[in-house]
């Protein structure tokens, strides 16, 4: 089926057309995808190895997509303008059409590098741990995130406990991909005061905690950090501003990745529907199948519109979080519709469709569930 509404390009177009540099860069990205990312997706039933994901990152660095010289404008999350944001989201979306795991690795590696630059750390591969103890859970820190900035130092030796002694029944979790050398994380010393910290990997106690709900290949650990680590930024206003900024970028990236994975699923479902025959005709001719496809497409278009809005004003964090809370359930539903078009074949790992649904469910739980996001957005208004 060719739908007039479906863009032919595999690149996400949000608002203004891409710059000449960006357009030229797309060709290089396509070659990069061919070399580094597509091998991960060719056999969807296989879990990408750490070496393969390392290669995804290495080649991205080589190409200037990660840690590019600031002037290129092509490095992920390097350029704070609307155009820069849209480039980054578009890039993640494009990568996620092939592999959401690869896209997530690049996204978080880039956020780590961004934080590293801002916080002045030397690590080659810092990794962001934005939701270490109390991220967006239950909106409990929403008021502080929404409050007008008050400059004050967090206590130099704050009353912070070592991380991960944790609260009963709920050890701290980290999802990360190799290579990473240190964690950069925000910590709350009370309901208002935030500071940024560095935890070198060698000082951490990491216990593997395998997951199976998508983003195959990404490692998950339970983390304990017996030592406090290195205090990097104690000015509360600056710390909060940086946190707000990366939370917004994280939200944009996660939605972009989910959208890319879903669009990949939808494109595959359309292809399949135009090939598979049941009931004496191609299944695309059954209204039941058309409802699945059109429902998925409407969700995809809706999330594209949400993303266009989110990238226009990433500084409007409450809005970004609220929109993200709507986007992920829509993406899950769309990916599920795509799977249903395949019937039993969609349930098999080698089709790759079920993986895209799992990826979307995983993304929906990362960095705040939809409920957490909404409660945080509302609490931010209280803070104001």
């Amino acid at each position, binding site marked *: 089926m060719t739908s007039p509404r479906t863009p032919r390009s595999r690149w996400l177009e949000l608002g203004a057309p891409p710059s000449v540099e960006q357009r030229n860069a797309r060709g290089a990205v396509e070659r990069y995808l061919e070399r580094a990312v597509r091998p991960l997706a060719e056999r969807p039933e296989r879990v990408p190895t750490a070496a393969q994901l390392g290669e995804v990152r290495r080649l991205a660095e080589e190409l200037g997509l990660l840690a590019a010289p600031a002037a290129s404008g092509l490095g992920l999350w390097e350029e704070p303008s609307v155009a820069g944001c849209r480039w980054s989201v578009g890039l993640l979306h494009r990568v996620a059409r092939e592999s959401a795991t690869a896209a997530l690795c690049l996204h978080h590696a880039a956020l780590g590098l961004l934080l590293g630059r801002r916080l002045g750390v030397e690590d080659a591969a810092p990794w962001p741990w934005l*939701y270490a103890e109390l991220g967006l859970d239950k909106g409990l820190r929403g008021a502080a995130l929404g409050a007008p900035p008050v400059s004050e130092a967090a206590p130099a030796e704050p009353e912070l406990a070592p991380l991960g002694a944790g609260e009963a*029944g709920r050890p701290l979790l980290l999802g990360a991909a190799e290579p990473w050398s240190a964690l950069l994380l925000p910590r709350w010393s009370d309901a208002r005061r935030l500071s940024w910290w560095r935890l070198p990997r060698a000082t951490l106690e990491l216990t593997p905690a*395998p997951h199976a*709900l998508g983003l195959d290949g990404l490692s998950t650990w339970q983390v304990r950090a017996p030592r406090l680590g290195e205090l990097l930024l104690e000015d509360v206003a600056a710390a909060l501003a940086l946190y707000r900024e990366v939370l917004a970028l994280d939200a944009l990236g996660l939605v972009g990745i989910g959208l890319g994975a879903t669009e990949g699923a939808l494109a595959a479902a359309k292809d399949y529907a135009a090939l598979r025959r*049941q009931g004496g005709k191609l299944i695309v001719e059954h209204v039941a199948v058309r409802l699945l496809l059109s429902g998925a497409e409407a969700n995809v278009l809706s999330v594209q519109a949400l993303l266009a809005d989110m990238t226009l004003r990433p500084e409007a964090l409450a809005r970004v979080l609220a929109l993200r809370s709507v986007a992920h359930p829509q993406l899950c539903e769309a990916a599920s519709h795509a799977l249903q078009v395949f*019937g039993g074949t969609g*349930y*098999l*790992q080698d089709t790759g469709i079920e993986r895209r649904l799992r990826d979307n469910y995983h993304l929906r739980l990362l960095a705040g569930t939809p409920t957490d996001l909404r409660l945080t957005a509302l609490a931010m208004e209280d803070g104001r």
Partner: protein
Amino acid sequence: MEGILSPSHPLSPHRALRELGWLAQPLVAAAPRSLWEQDTQSLPPAAAAYRRRVRRFAQRELAPRALELDLQREPQLIERVLEAAGRAGLLSDLLPAPLGSIPPGLLRVPFTLAQSLKMEELCAACAGLGLMVGASALGAVPLVLAGQPRALARHVVPAFRHSLRSRPALFAFAITEPSGGSDVEESEGALRYVPGTVARRAPGGWRLHGRKVFISGGALAQRVTVFAALEGEGMESWTCFVVGRGAPGFSVARTELKMGQRASEAAELVFDGVFVPDADVVGGLRRGWGLNRAVLNASRVPVGAIALGIARGALEGALDFAASARLAGKGLLDYQDVQLGLAQMLIEVQAMRALVWQSANTWRPAQARASIAKVFASDAALRVCEAALELLGNHGVLHARRVEKQLRDARLTQIYEGTNQINRLAILEEQQTWLASAPHGQP
């Protein structure tokens, strides 16, 4: 629980109801038990006892192995669980003892209800292993429904006895073909479908040629009930045949890697001139389509029960997490969003069970009611699993927490035994005369 009055408070209904007069006591539920217990008590005593027994079995034999088998299908482990299921009478409960294992008291309970009770309990512990047990019943149902004493004596009774006494002797049910999935589940499609598996006349019997795909338990089964068209004829000639595991020409081409329900295999079966004697034609020539539809009417409610079991498992996983985890100095159960989420899951599970039990409580399972239960329960199961995942937050992705497995398992219930789209059409197919006979709602 913060915000919920404790049962010991004078204003708590627990206390207030107990203090009503003795005349009121028989009419009020002053000390209600868990919903599971209340529902069990509403069943006839034999069914209640059966439900308790299967639950104990599932918790003992299935639950401890569910995660391991989800990661890797370990054949010996699966065999051991099935052996235990066989000895517990769960692979032979389509016939009364001593031919099978239905205890006398349970004979008064419709078998779709008994199967539904069983599938909920098994699948709350592990849907993959539950499916292995359920698929075997599915494979035997055509033989039971066809009601031919000789076929029962030749295949069903020996298999049931074998399962009860030594090793599991499983059945599998094979209708799906590479080019016909929905087409073998609904009549409009069947009308236009050119059958892929064909029976050719041979002296003393038939030779089967073709392939069947996605057959649950197909690689382990001792006997497969296979549906094929007679050579040169269409779907109206569909006939059911019993094929033994070792029959020359029969082979397993592959077993699939699946999103969930991984402890059960979905096998592609090849029939390369497999000889089936006339005695192993089930229910008569050209009776296969009717038999198939009768089997689906009987099996779609238990598929609803599979979904129900999975949802209950997810709910229990969410409850365990909420009861043990703390966040920002208080228990998760003290947060009102968690309380509301749990309440909604309880509502969904309760509604699923009510519908499944109501639809199952008949000796003549009918198409619309069966499909309604299957579609509603499978869609609701997804909602419950999603809610459970969200309650766990980022812990939801962890394999050890089980809930993500339950979500993966639940997704299959919207596909097999006819996709939910096909089941919706089946509701209309059965009810079309009534639907077309306007005006409705008049005496």
